[in-house]
């Protein structure tokens, strides 16, 4: 089956790849580009572990084809920290133990960062509903929600 040549931007860098039209952005990231930060928990958009942003919009990378990435700007968990330091959410997640096994963490961080960019002062309920598509089986969400809320408060204070 013939492959398609795609040029896109990932975490600010121009990237090109060949892919089968059936491959998803997640397949491309993980199996063609070696970027394994985004995780496959379900492959059907139900768990959010593969969350990335595409042109600033939060999506499941398992629900987007690699060929659709042409000309887009994709951000993954690998693009959240700067070279110098972690994003405040990353720092807070470690400090609060907002992860146990950590498999959902990349997706949750991408989703939470996207929320705070849109809404710097979310309520607990807004955080919970925004993250409803990011399944976590370890934590019961308590420490995750607290980490996001408190990061938001810190970032508001800092700005």
């Amino acid at each position, binding site marked *: 089956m013939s492959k398609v040549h795609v040029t896109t931007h990932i975490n600010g860098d121009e990237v090109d790849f060949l892919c*089968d039209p*059936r*491959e998803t952005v997640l*397949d491309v990231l*993980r*199996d063609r580009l*070696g*970027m*394994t*930060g985004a*995780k*496959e*928990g*379900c*492959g*059907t958009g*139900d*768990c959010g*572990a593969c969350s990335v942003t595409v042109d600033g919009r939060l999506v499941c990378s398992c629900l987007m084809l690699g060929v659709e990435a042409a000309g887009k700007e994709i951000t*993954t*968990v*690998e693009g*959240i*920290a700067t070279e110098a330091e*972690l994003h405040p959410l*990353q720092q807070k*997640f*470690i*400090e*609060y*133990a907002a*992860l*146990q*096994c*950590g*498999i*959902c*963490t*990349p997706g949750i*961080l991408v989703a939470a960062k996207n929320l705070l960019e849109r809404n710097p002062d979310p309520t607990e*309920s807004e*955080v*919970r*509903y925004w*993250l*409803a*598509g*990011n*399944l*976590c*089986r*370890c*934590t*019961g*969400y*308590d*420490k*995750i*929600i*607290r980490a996001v809320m408190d990061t938001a408060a810190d970032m508001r204070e800092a700005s």
Partner: protein
Amino acid sequence: MALDSLKTDGFKQIGTRPNRPDGLDKVTGRALYGADVTAPGMLWGVIVRSPHAHAKIVKIDTSKAEAMDGVKAVVTRADFSDAIQPAAGPRGEMWNVLENVMAGDKALYDGHAVAAVAATSQLAARDAAKAIVVEYEVLPHVTDVDKAMAADAPVIREGATEKSVPEGMHPNVVRYHESGHGDLEAGFAEADLVIEDTFKTEATHQGYIEPHACLGTLGGDGKGELWCCTQGHWNVQKVCAALLGLETSQLRVTASEIGGGFGGKTAVFIEPVALALSRKANKPVKIVMNRADVFRATGPTASTSMDIKIGMKKDGTITAASGLFRCQGGAFPGAPMEFTAMCAFAPYNLQAVKQTGFDVMTNRPKQAAYRAPGSPMAAFAVESVIDQLCNQLGLDPIDTRLKNASREGTQASFGPKWDRIGLVETLEAAKAHPHYSEPLKEGQGRGVSCGFWFNHGGETAVSLALSEDGTVQLAVGTPDIGGSRASMAMMAAEELGIPYENVRCTIADTATLGYNEISHGSRVTYASGLATIKAARDAVKKLCARAAAKWGIEEDAVKWEDGCAVPSGPNAGDHEPLPLAKITAKMGATGGPIVGHFEATPEGAGVSFATHIVDAEVDKETGKTTISRYTVVQDAGKAIHPTYVEGQFQGGAAQGIGWALNEEYIYGEDGRLQNAGFLDYRIPVASDLPMIDAVIVEVPNPGHPYGVRGVGETSICPPLAAIANAVSAAAGVRLKQLPMSPPRILAALGTHD
């Protein structure tokens, strides 16, 4: 170990909350899980699975697949060891594992592996798997536990029944348990109220977010390498070696970061298949399960059907209790019915008690451990009846439980006398918690339940090597399933008197340490923790010996204090304290590397009890339940890293909420699993839950140097019953079947007759 040797205070590290050592890797996406590695020349493996619940495999035609571009190997049962034979009881377990990994003559459940293919890409392997043609002769099937025990049920497999099973039972009943003490008849006669009821629970899945994944290489020389997400890589090594006819030590297994397990990754599923494919193709093979196959073919917990009878006096004294527990564990022996039976009445000091368990086979996937396997269901049934008794006798649920609570010295329902335990302390803390006295709002109900789980020691080996600069490399063999590397580093730092950051804890591969039992039974912080402390003490002894040599005094004239060797008393002479880093800087010239060890099977594991309080609201028009408040109180013995202990409490409660309300395996008439995905297997999402208060009670375990009890599993024992009690109070009708889904609640309310 005697209680007086316990260290319970004066800690520098224990009880603090440092950042976990693997935190940065996990928040940046750098951490490598099962599916995150590749090897040069790697192939992808895909497993072909039975669509039938029960079928004879007539023929497997692989010719079309083998002819496809990029296909390098196909394996079936013939490619695994034929030295393993079936047998009843524990002797047959390796055959059970083999049969589950790759079906022999029959497919025993929807999703049972029947063949596998390796090809140059995942898509090529998937296409090839679809081209493998399997001819089946469909057989009658059964998936329900009660129906599987009925006379007309199809027999899953003859010859699997243990001798202990009473005569005349269906061959699907393969194991039997009975325990208890006292005169039941007299006990029930003494009661003012006896309630007898039947309860059912459905099978639930551990629901870890990371599907099983592995990368294996096996050459014609019988030497292999395997990378996989597992709770126990020595067990993977042992099982793979047996299934493939290898020498155990020729296979090195490395545990990846693990994306959740909860017991479900104690078993072996795809690893032998990847190795078999690799042996045939002579290339590395990676297999990553898809989510549907995780649900269809990896272990859910048992489903149950339970009869409970409890007698109580007006003052709340329980006079007698009995329980009959039927547990279905799929197409193989192994449903944890003895744990169900043993845990059922464990919280109570009973004069007369009897528990009976049946292990029943059906056409479902082989059950695997799920967090306190067997115990949550028992608590659901027993604690529901206690709640009914309290309601009818007008008694406070916590006072009544306190009145009957097991304590140090009382006889456990399953036999032994209790050592120091903390049930009473959890009940008292729950009673004193503001949650318990908060007034309920209109439409809400409150539920309380206790829960119990064992703690396990198990074979444990730890190695603690000192570096020249005074830092420490700590190698443990129990995969870190919830932050244990932090706890191990804390315990090592505590013993050595050095900063936490100076210890790097690694999960060693099977070539590096002696056998380590699986990370299960809430054993890691207990057993690997004890091993770490003992290994550190071993290193300290060697450090003191170096100081003694330097000072020219006897080894026992040196002791270890705040990270330094110091003379043990005035008679030992006047020597400046010698810090660890000064000793290690010269260790090459003073006798060579310094390494502390521990290799043994710790025997002092301490059980953990919990009491949970939950408020629930029920929409009586739709049957929908909302959990409005939740409090966990549990005995941790000693919380090494309290934040991660809280995390275990909260995580167990959340899984219990899912189990109680919405999670279930749903089989169709055709015996196929209908909800093999996170869309319809409904685990709690963030918006479903409230914050979960976690109260840590510390009643030290005399069997651990710091008093640690395993905490990982007990937290899932009380929720099913606590929620059922809350929902029953809110709805005004007793719910006796899980999950308490909206249709079940409306049906119980008689809303749509």
